[in-house]
């Protein structure tokens, strides 16, 4: 479940990707997918992402029209278009909520330490230990 640590991790990674513009918010999923799918399987990563969306959708109006894609690699392809009409600040809040739930589910299964260790290769420049 989301904790202050997973919340901080999600915020850090969303902020890192948002430097490339709001359109890049789906990159957090894509990079996570690249790291985790060889280990837990492509459908496993997509399944967790879909569950995370289910959890946060009631609280996040901006995400209500977002549908997780059936193709695991492109599961977050429509995330950015969903958020395109929102301000960057609102898109950031929605993105952080979604990824907090996403990482929270992963952490529930394998713990924070191992999650960070597995994600680190995707964001080597982000200091995840401080989260």
């Amino acid at each position, binding site marked *: 479940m989301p904790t202050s640590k997973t919340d901080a991790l999600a915020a850090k990674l969303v902020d890192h990707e948002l430097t490339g513009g709001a359109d890049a918010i789906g990159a957090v999923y894509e990079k996570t997918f690249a790291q985790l799918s060889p280990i837990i*399987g492509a459908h*496993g990563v997509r399944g967790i992402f879909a569950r995370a969306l289910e959890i946060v959708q009631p609280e996040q109006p901006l995400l209500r029209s977002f549908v997780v894609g059936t193709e695991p690699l492109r599961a977050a392809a429509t995330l950015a278009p969903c958020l395109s009409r929102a301000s960057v600040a609102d898109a950031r809040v929605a993105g952080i909520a979604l990824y907090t739930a996403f990482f929270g589910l992963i952490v529930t*299964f394998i713990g924070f330490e*191992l999650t960070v*260790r597995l994600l680190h290769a995707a964001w080597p420049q982000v200091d995840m230990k401080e989260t």
Partner: protein
Amino acid sequence: MTGVTIATIPSGVPGLDEVLGGGIPHLSFNLVVGGPGCGKTTLGHQIAFTNATKANRALYISIIGEPPLKMLRYQQQFSFFDAAKVGEAVRFIHLGEEARSGGLGRVLDRIVEEVARTNPAIVVVDSFRSMMHADKEPAAALDVQDFIQRLSIHLTTCEATTFLIGELSHDAEPESPIFTVADGIVALSQSTDRNSVVRKLQVVKMRGQGQMPGLQTMRISRDGVSVFPRLLTPDEHVKPSAPALRLETGDKTLDEMFGGGVPSGYSVLVCGPSGSGKTVLSNEFILAGAQRGEPGIIAVFERRPNDYLQTTPFGTEFQQLIREKKLDVLYLRPLDLSIDETLLEIRNAALRIGAKRIVIDSLSGLELALAPTFRDDFRESLYRIVGALTGVGATLLSTVELDDSYNFLRLSPHGIAFLSDAIVLQRYVEIDSELRRAIAVVKVRGSEHSKELREYAIEAGRLKVRAPLRNYDGLLTGRPRLRVPGKDP
């Protein structure tokens, strides 16, 4: 001609290297087989984490079966799981999608790709049984054989030591060619007897090594898998004559009854009814040794060590001896122990502190602590206990509860008196309407000893052996008769 030397790598599983004949042969292709819940995946992880470094990586390939997310979740609970190694030293790959979409051919291609990319020293494939079910094409069996054969050749040429894990029984499918390809086969099993489960491991095959034959018991704990090799040292139990070195029991009169103390290296059985002072005698035996610089072990099967230390009159002295590493009190009370696990724990403790005296208190408690399946072989088990523990150079004193029956004299409920080198008997006797205690040294192998039946008391937690009960006949019948002077038979 000098043959090639086969190096071995450690399994990281306590006891397993000994069973394997020295470790896992480097570059070998091994099968780990057994039913669900036997510990195959845990064993695979334990070997991988033990050996993996950044220079010698381990590649753990999961296919169909336990979801990898859950596998990582559960394996983290074991102390050998080092999260710092995940990623670089231990790399996890899931090939479920490949198995579903491309069958065995695709799985093999991906394994080859990953091995070429990561150059691992250890490869674990979990599980190959699921691959057999994944490929439903005609002639699938042939494909699986071909797959295993090609995988074996490829991984060997890549200089990897490999483990294929599968829910396969070498007993049920002995003709399977997979077993021929493998250099080593480790079979795990578990059996239920009443409420207890006993896990066993068998090294069916290990090319190039002299593995230990037979079934070994194993346990899965927070530290992962531990194996308890069968200790077979019967020869060490045979002693042609009483050794010159005698050990003091703590009571001088009792020493005299032994013919000058307990012969060193002997197995002594102290039998008596409840409350007769068997534990008192065994404690004095340990304390007498400690006072002469002979470290001791007390294996308790009836009370917890803290209770034991608090209730024994020598508790303070014992606690001091434990701090000085001259005494170890082992609490062994679960109801699913195997005899080998028990033996190893006592033997390892004895070797650790250089014990010269070992007490098992009591054999009756030990029998209860064993899983039911081992109780059937209790006599054989005791035979091995005596051999193994006296084999480390210690003198063993075991207590055993005796039925307080006066119709016949049986020195132990297990028929194990013949295994003992010396036997001390404690009995209650009624004299002048008073319950009194009597002690006799029934047997000291290869040595003269007293045949007297002496009265004894327990005073201030110590055994005090007194004068012989010479004026009575029929003491052991429970109906002693006062002998009238001048009317001796």
